């Protein structure tokens, strides 16, 4: 199978080489070829290099696989919330198919727009196509509400890829996480479609499936939304039809929210894979959770008398985008800190800031996005000081000996 594929690729290859008929599309061809087969040039043949079949395309593929549990669960949950809201029981498969049809257009738009820009940018630069958008394109659908209009996603994706990535020099050169810039753009440009009570659960039909009137007890708010707008200090959080929910509901994830962020369980499955393969840093992940838990605990003890400050610290970790951000966004190897001590500081600050924003600013019930973008700016600074401190320490040791 793979031999046949190799032969096919080799057969069409001459057309794309300089002098061939399709010379202009060389970078496109190269993108596909290196996606299918590990190029022979990952490490130079001469000299003392570590030779490894893993290059960044393979790394990206691992992350995509790790995102699958969250994606599939997210699809099911979109359908589940829909049928829950309209008070019907549709059975597993129609629930899933409803969600699949609702989410698929978003994925397609995200990939078509993002990869389109990547291909054009690669042609202009005359370089090979960067693989970074493979993961970004999958992250974007997972962090938006299901009812976000497709044209908004297209504009936001285009903006993020051009202004957060290509102008900095493409994959690996960006300062900010591209998927989060997409979400930040949506959040600030179209706030009515990214927050509030009407965007998280689709109550209309999807390609003729489902549809109905929401039941009387229906509220479309997310848990963090409920907490941000609550007037009293201690409230019982509820799901979309008014049933009380707790830690385990948040952990399993059958709650309203952005498509891929709701299920901490599915996210942890993905986390296990990227940790096992060594793609992501466990230090960042662990320190994000630690920072968040500690900060939330501090607010539990000494915080202001608001519902969100009283929200138990362990619940903070499973509701909203906290877990998703910690596992898939904070660990982005390009935008996170790279020194080992730096990773601890970077992760801890993300967790702490996310909770601070959640609790102290009711306008932004979801603090994770802003916390990560904020710390993206500081990652190079953290690294700089960690490296300098190390140099100083070693210099001291060296001069002492002499």
């Amino acid at each position: 199978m793979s031999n046949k594929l190799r032969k096919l690729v080799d057969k069409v290859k001459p057309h794309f080489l300089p002098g061939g008929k399709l010379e202009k599309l060389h970078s496109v061809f190269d993108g596909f070829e290196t996606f299918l087969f590990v190029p022979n040039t990952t490490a130079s043949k001469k000299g003392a290099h570590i030779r490894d079949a893993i290059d960044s395309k393979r790394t990206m593929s691992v992350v995509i696989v790790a995102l699958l549990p969250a994606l599939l669960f997210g699809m099911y949950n979109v359908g589940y919330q829909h049928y829950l809201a309209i008070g019907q029981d549709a059975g597993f498969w129609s629930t899933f198919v409803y969600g699949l049809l609702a989410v698929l257009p978003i994925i397609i738009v995200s990939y078509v727009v993002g990869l389109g820009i990547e291909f054009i940018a690669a042609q202009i630069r005359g370089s090979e196509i960067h693989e970074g958008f493979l993961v970004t394109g999958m992250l974007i659908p997972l962090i938006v509400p299901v009812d976000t209009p497709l044209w908004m996603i297209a504009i936001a994706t285009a903006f993020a890829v051009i202004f957060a990535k290509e102008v900095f020099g493409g994959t690996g050169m960006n300062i900010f996480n591209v998927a989060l810039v997409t979400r930040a753009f949506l959040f600030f440009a179209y706030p009515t479609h990214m927050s509030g009570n009407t965007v998280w659960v689709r109550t209309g039909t999807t390609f003729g499936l489902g549809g109905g009137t929401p039941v009387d007890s229906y509220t479309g708010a997310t848990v963090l939304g409920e907490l941000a707008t609550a007037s009293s200090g201690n409230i019982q959080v509820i799901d979309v039809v008014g049933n009380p929910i707790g830690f385990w509901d948040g952990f399993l994830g059958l709650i309203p929210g952005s498509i891929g962020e709701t299920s901490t369980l599915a996210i942890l499955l993905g986390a296990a894979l990227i940790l096992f393969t060594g793609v992501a840093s466990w230090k960042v992940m662990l320190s994000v959770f630690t920072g968040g838990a500690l900060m939330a605990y501090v607010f539990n003890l000494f915080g202001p008398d608001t519902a969100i400050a009283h929200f138990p610290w362990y619940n903070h970790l499973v509701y909203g985008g906290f877990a998703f951000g910690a596992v898939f966004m904070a660990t982005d190897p390009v935008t996170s800190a790279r020194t080992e001590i730096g990773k601890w500081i970077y992760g801890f600050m993300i967790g702490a800031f996310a909770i601070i924003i959640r609790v102290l600013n009711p306008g932004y019930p979801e603090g994770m996005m802003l916390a990560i973008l904020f710390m993206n700016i500081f990652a190079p600074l953290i690294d700089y000081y960690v490296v300098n401190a190390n140099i100083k320490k070693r210099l001291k040791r060296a001069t002492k000996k002499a």
Partner: protein
Amino acid sequence: MSKLMSAKTKEILLGPLAKNNPITVQVLGICSALAVTAKLEPAVVMGISVTIIVAFGNVIISLLRNTIPNRIRIIVQLVVIAALVTIVSEILKAFAYDVSVQLSVYIGLIITNCILMGRLEAFAMSNRPWESFIDGLGNGFGYAWILVAVAFFRELLGSGTLFGYQVIPQALYDAGYHNNGLMILPPMALILVACIIWVHRAKDKELQE
């Protein structure tokens, strides 16, 4: 006319519009470019005000240039600008009150606009009044057109209007279109200025670093 517009004066007038633009090339006066460009009307008024002040400030300083003691020249320049800014501000309050409210402190802050001090110090102090006047006009226009260009896109995409008139048809809103709230926020002005700089440098090879 030929005497008035020699090749050199032409260069003084037209240079700041593109090759030597105060905002995109010298990167001066950025703060006001961010602050007043959410709508076209204040941007246009701001552009005109700055053009008038820098042109006449240049003339006055140029006339005085041989009598200003070198050690206190900055103070003298500031007094001249402050006087002109106050006049413009009072005129706006009298005849265009709404706009002057929208511009709020930014008219007063023209005093601190780097373009003014820059032109007075760099040009008017060492050139004759007529050239100084032309230089002031050129730099004022160079500043104004960037402001208007940025404000055009910000108002069109952020509010769907131009000069306060609805230009994006209601039918489009009914079809699901929304104004882009980010355009109203200051960061977008920075990004738009950056885009203008981008296009400008891509076209003009001399400016590339």
